[in-house]
């Protein structure tokens, strides 16, 4: 055994490997490593043997084969002539989109519900309690199915908007149509296109990049302005007037760019079977969005409530003693302190949302699991490769989110000196 070489001195006895604390941990680790390697080899050997028995091989060539199926919600160019790999990309983007918007709304809902649950208003606190308990104690899958069905059953079909005696009409001056297929809202369009940059797998419109750059630049400039104002205030005791400068910095550049690009909205209108033009938020997306937001929002509400209760009562009293209004007390004193308690569980709620997007299969939301893990595996019969790839992608997303959130958590953590 390799261990004997590492022994020190003549007094070494084999039994020291077990009873000497200097060597014992090494022995245990080597034994564990051998067992792990043996176990891993056993799994690989079984897999190879099973694949051979089935006459299958292990390769990822299927990703470049024509997919042949259509995906309704696609954020990048995709037709049924595209490859399975491309279908996977479309699914991945759909997953990320859903996770992102759900995280935002779940946080908003959770914070509001958590604060309102502690409200002195009897009805409101009871209603929030009811909401939290109802969503926490019934499986998410059931909520997804039920919300999807409610939307399908209670909204009008597009045909109800048609004809002389239409039973439904569009909202907000004929710009938004809520149907049982989804919600049609005005979509942004540009008359001038600056072309697109092809990044190999996805091409990004330069218009989009330009607008993004301008927005980020304005925000940065505004932050600089406010910092400067604070510095002046600290030096002189007088805060310079900044509101009109802020407005100018924030809105003037973007307006100029939008006008230059010929920005206008395309409004949905009923043509043929469906509404055309505008942006279409499908029911499957909305159902997943609502269900994930409400379900996770209930959990976040509990975290928020616990966080607020964790802030010592004296802090509230001190704030009141300083003459602060209740809303200021909440915003300036309680919530910032509660945040430190709230953020760690919030990270795991965000991870849960991301993982729970995989339930999109229940309502036909074409996320990563429905494209790569569903139709692609089914059509190509490559379940081993497909499932491994699927797990790796989810794992990568999860690690990324928890990494980013941990960085944020460290930055807001109480600095103890």
């Amino acid at each position, binding site marked *: 055994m390799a261990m004997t070489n590492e022994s020190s001195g003549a007094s070494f006895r084999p039994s020291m490997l077990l009873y000497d604390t200097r060597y014992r941990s090494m022995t245990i680790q080597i034994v564990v490593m051998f067992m792990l390697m043996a176990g891993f080899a056993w799994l690989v050997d079984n897999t190879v043997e099973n694949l051979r028995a089935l006459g299958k091989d292990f390769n990822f060539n299927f990703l470049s084969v024509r997919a042949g199926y*259509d995906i309704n919600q696609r954020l990048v160019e995709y037709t049924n002539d595209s490859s399975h790999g491309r279908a996977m990309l479309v699914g991945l983007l759909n997953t990320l989109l859903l996770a992102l918007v759900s995280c935002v709304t779940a946080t908003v809902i959770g914070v509001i519900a958590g604060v309102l649950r502690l409200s002195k208003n009897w009805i409101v606190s009871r209603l929030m309690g009811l909401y939290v308990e109802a969503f926490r104690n019934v499986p998410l899958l059931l909520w997804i199915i039920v919300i999807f069905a409610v939307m399908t*059953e209670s909204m009008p079909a597009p045909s109800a908007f048609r004809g002389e005696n239409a039973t439904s009409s569009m909202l907000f001056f004929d710009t938004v149509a809520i149907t049982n297929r989804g919600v049609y809202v005005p979509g942004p369009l540009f008359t001038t296109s600056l072309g697109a940059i092809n990044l190999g797998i996805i091409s990004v419109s330069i218009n989009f990049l330009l607008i993004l750059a301008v927005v980020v630049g304005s925000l940065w400039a505004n932050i600089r302005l406010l910092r400067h104002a604070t510095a002046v205030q600290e030096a002189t005791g007088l805060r310079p007037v900044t509101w009109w400068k802020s407005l100018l910095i924030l809105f003037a550049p973007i307006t100029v760019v939008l006008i230059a690009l010929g920005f206008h909205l395309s409004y949905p209108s009923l043509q*043929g079977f469906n509404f055309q033009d505008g942006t279409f938020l499908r029911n499957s997306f909305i159902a997943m969005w609502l269900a994930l937001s409400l379900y996770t929002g209930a959990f976040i509400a509990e975290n928020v409530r616990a966080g607020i209760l964790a802030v010592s009562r004296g802090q509230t009293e001190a704030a009141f003693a300083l003459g602060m209004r209740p809303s200021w007390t909440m915003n300036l004193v309680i919530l910032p302190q509660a945040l430190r308690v709230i953020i760690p569980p919030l990270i795991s709620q965000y991870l849960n949302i991301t993982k729970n997007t995989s339930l999109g299969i229940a309502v036909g939301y074409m996320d990563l699991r429905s494209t790569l893990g569903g139709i692609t*595996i089914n059509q190509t019969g490559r379940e081993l490769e497909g499932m491994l790839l699927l797990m790796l992608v989810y794992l990568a997303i999860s690690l990324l989110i928890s990494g980013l959130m941990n960085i944020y958590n460290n930055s807001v953590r109480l600095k103890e000196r």
Partner: protein
Amino acid sequence: MKKTVFVGTLAAAAAIAGTASAAKLDDVKARGELNCGVSTGVNGFSAPDSAGEWQGFDVAVCRAVAAAVLSDPKKVKFVTTTGQTRFTALASGEIDVLARNTTWTFSRDVDLKFTFAGVNYYDGQGFMVNKALGVSSAKELDGATVCIQTGTTTELNLADYFKVNNMSYEPVPIETNAEAQQQYLAGACDVYTTDASGLAATRATFADPENHILLPEIISKEPLGPLVAHGDDQWSEIVMWTLNALIAAEELGVTSANLEELAKGTENPEINRLLGNEGDLGPMFGLDNEWAKRAIMAGGNYGEIFAATIGESTPIGLARGLNAQWTQGGLLYSPPFR
């Protein structure tokens, strides 16, 4: 705390686990039970009744095979599979036969390595629309929202059809038939597309079936049949000829009513061979001579099964159509029992 349950079950499972290399027939006989993969619920084809007994057209095939091999149509373990898990279950040997509205295609046969034991239902993909839509042909469906069941050949056929006709559509993929029906009835999709038999079965249960029409276009061939894994010819032959025996029985006029009578011997040598009074067909693939008699006894001949599960007298109300005997202008054609 529950360690014993786990290990105990593991040991029990290991004890009954068969080896894939041994002949399937011996496995099934030794197990005393046929593992048959069915869907989690398709009206008329496979669904549990309130007593928990599985009923339906696909289920009847399983029962016939169990009757032929194990002499008891009840000795079937029904394994519910989804569109996604069905092939793996069959390839891994978890199930012996898959009878789950599965379309016979080249790639499933060759690439996924399954043997189709014939066709028990000739189907094709069709469209159902609401009459109020005023559509009379699938060619008018440009821009329509289409509900499809995901995980099947249906979505590929649909993509091909709209591509060939240069039309666009909005697919709404749905996991189960029940959900798709809900969506369609609420008007969340203009069209529901699946196998025509499924459409007819679904329409039959509507509150207002007269307001929905099936479009005349059938856009694909969907020969549905039971299938087994590659590599055991004896087993695939047993399943194939059990199905053929049901079809031949109808052609020859053997029904569950006159079966006992005819089994005593008849003038017709083909019937005698089928029911085991002449020749030694059964022992050729490891069964006894009365295998076909038992298979027919289980649920009647093909026509009887059809009539009892999905035929015109049932709520589903399918006509025989392509699934009539070849002598009646249909496609059912059993090779001779000789």
